[in-house]
């Protein structure tokens, strides 16, 4: 027993010791050699452990698509796009996958589309800097008895304008946090949150839907065309978990 544990520890040490960059490179090599399942196997735990990057998610999406898991592939690409909205490759893959699966993307309001122009970190930083920087520039010259200058007013107005421009984006971010992707094929939307619940409609893997409420192990989601019902948590994942 002790020997087995030592052996397991010995074999497991290299895995533990690997950095996220090394694991990313290993997955890339597996993918390049055509071993897509191995690439997905390497990248899934990396992301699950909280080592998240746009590149890793993009490659995870590619690997999942190659092993015929379209729902997981679209989810990974959506997450990569959330981190790096300007990446044309990820956007192209999402278009490609949805074209192949004959799916539409999530229907976004104008504020949600606006928020998708930049990563969420950018909007939060812009809002913080704009609000507090603008207020500080208005208040501090008076408190510190600085000589009044025109640039104080100008920069304060600019910063407050940045804050006002970031407000709809932040609202869009809060709305987008409800969007998720159906993971499994022929996922049933049920009338009640129970396994025995009547199936109202079935949705395809990769379809986008919005979470409206949760109850236990079930989420009430609404997909395109007002198809709504309860879905198991395991069959659905939010883009921002």
């Amino acid at each position, binding site marked *: 027993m002790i020997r087995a544990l030592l052996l397991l520890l010995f074999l497991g040490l290299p895995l533990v010791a690997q950095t996220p960059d090394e694991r990313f490179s290993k997955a890339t090599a597996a993918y390049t050699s*055509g071993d897509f399942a191995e690439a997905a196997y390497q990248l899934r735990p990396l992301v699950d452990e909280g080592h998240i*990057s746009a590149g890793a998610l993009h490659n995870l999406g590619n690997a999942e698509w190659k092993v015929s898991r379209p729902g997981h592939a679209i989810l990974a690409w959506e997450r990569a796009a959330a981190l790096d909205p300007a990446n044309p490759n990820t956007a192209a893959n999402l278009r490609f*996958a949805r074209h192949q699966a004959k799916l539409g993307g999530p229907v976004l309001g104008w504020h949600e589309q606006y928020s998708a122009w930049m990563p*969420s970190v950018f909007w939060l930083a812009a809002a913080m800097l704009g609000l507090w920087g603008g207020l500080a520039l208005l208040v501090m010259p008076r408190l510190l008895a600085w000589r009044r200058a025109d640039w104080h007013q100008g920069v304060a107005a600019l910063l407050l304008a940045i804050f006002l421009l970031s407000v709809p984006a932040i609202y869009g971010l*809060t709305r987008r946090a409800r969007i998720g992707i159906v993971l499994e094929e022929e996922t049933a939307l049920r009338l009640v949150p129970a396994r025995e619940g009547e199936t109202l409609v079935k949705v395809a893997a990769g379809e986008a839907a919005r979470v409206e409420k949760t109850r236990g192990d079930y989420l009430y989601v609404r997909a395109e065309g007002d198809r709504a019902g309860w879905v198991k948590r395991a069959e659905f994942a939010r883009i921002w978990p």
Partner: protein
Amino acid sequence: MSTISARIAALLVSILTASVAFSQTQMPPEIQLQLQRGLAPNVVQPDAPLAVSASFEPAVARVGRPAEYRVTIMGSQRIVQLPELEAPAGLDVMPPRIVGGIGRQITRYAVVAAHAGEFTMPGFDVQVGGRLVKVPPATLQVVQPQPGEAVYHPVKAVLDLPRRDLFVGETIVARLLLIETEDESPQFVSHVAKTNGAVVFRAEMRTKREQFVWAGKPASGLVMPVQITPISEGEVEVNCQIVVQIARNEDGAIGRGLTTQSTLDTPSAHIRVLALPRAEQPAGFTGGIGNFTLSQPKLSAAEVEVGEPITLTVALSGEGNLEGVSAPEIGEIAGWQGFKPTTDFQRDESDPSMARGTKAFTYTLIPRRAGLKGTPPLPFSFFDPVKRAYVDATVPPLPVLVKAGTVPAAVAPGESRTEAGPQDDTPRELPLAMTGLAEHPGRWARSLGPALWSPWFLAAQLMPPLALLALWAWRRRRDYLAAHPEIALRRLARTAAKRALSAARTAARKGDGKGFLEAGIGALCEAAAPHNSAKAASLTRDEVLLVLRDDADAARGARSIFEAADALHYTTAAVSPEPRKLLAELERAVDHLTSRP
């Protein structure tokens, strides 16, 4: 030598042939006949007694209801051959069924009389063992059914079509229903054939006993899936004939569990066959009609050299005429040379209707120039009969890198190697394709979503207002002190007095009288300075005592300190002040001065 061998062989063959001929001539004819029929030869005594009888059961039957004509042979020898029965007119005789074995054989014919009367089955000869045996005639009385007597319900066969409007070439799965009645029950189907209709008719000889709804009523019976493919447009009438074994449920004459063979005809099923809309027929349509999905195509390699073949496999799955669908040929396209694809059809065995399946097409492609980044799009489409529209299922280009290699590339006539491809000025819609991998992971993050509601973000939002608030408070305090300088002076004096008093305490502890007195006078002057609007260093003893005039004890203490200091400085006699005694008075005087408003 060879001649001798040939002669010996001919001799052996002739001996063998002669022996067989002899043995056959010695064999009784009935045994020869049994051997020819593949039966075990009947080797019982040919002279054994035989009892032959014929009868109808029941002897009196109803019109339209089946009865049974039985020929019973009691004996150890088997019936070799049955003659054709010469049934009387109006009596329908079904094919026979022989039951029993050694000792008794019963040949059973199901008969149905078309009208009332007396029917006599004439006697006939039957060969049993090695001899002919006379079967006696038998008579059946047939009477009209009694008023109110239930009508006999035979098994009914119908063709159940899922739809009546079909397209030419479309394959649908219909159900052949053999409906059980209270009088008869179908057992198994031995043959099905189409008798009418311009359709391709294919029956799966697998039946299942099911309960179903027919003509709005629940029913049960055998269900057999049949595939129907119309081959010409217009109104088509389809019917078929089924040979089925039927068990009659009536007690008595025939008994339960015994079956007879019947031939049933289905009523005509009318279908309307439509032509495919030819005007909208897209590229890549090869006759596929149904509800199909195209699987993700797979390439045999991600990199290939010019001239090196790779295979591209794509599978079409679903329900329809999959077996008849062929893959479109592509020939030469966009720098690739394509060959006739091979196909492989797999039926979905889990589907009881046997209508579903998967057909895989494997294309062999050869790149003809280096630098190509993807396979050519493979046009493919099929017709969806439910939507009544063509579905474009073109296989998109797959990423593959074509490198220059040692294999010489084939060059099509009229095409140069250096040309990038045919120039086409007309704008075209480029097919979508999956992109490659990200080479770098990018910045690693710990979470995906916006940090809008995270505690650290909310805490960070408190910092700027707190800082501004503190700055405002500081500014207000500063302005207040500027407006009231005496407060600042008093605070400074109090601080300096405390510092000097602390030094005096230290000196007192050490017994340093001179140090104590200097520090004590400093403390008194610092404490008294705010009350005199003068600097501490410039205050005299009288000015300090003047400030202390309202507290006689404090003034007395201060005076004693000043006097001790004067004595130390200005007398020649040895003076030894007692700092420990003076410390209490000093503290009282300083406290009085610093606590004054």
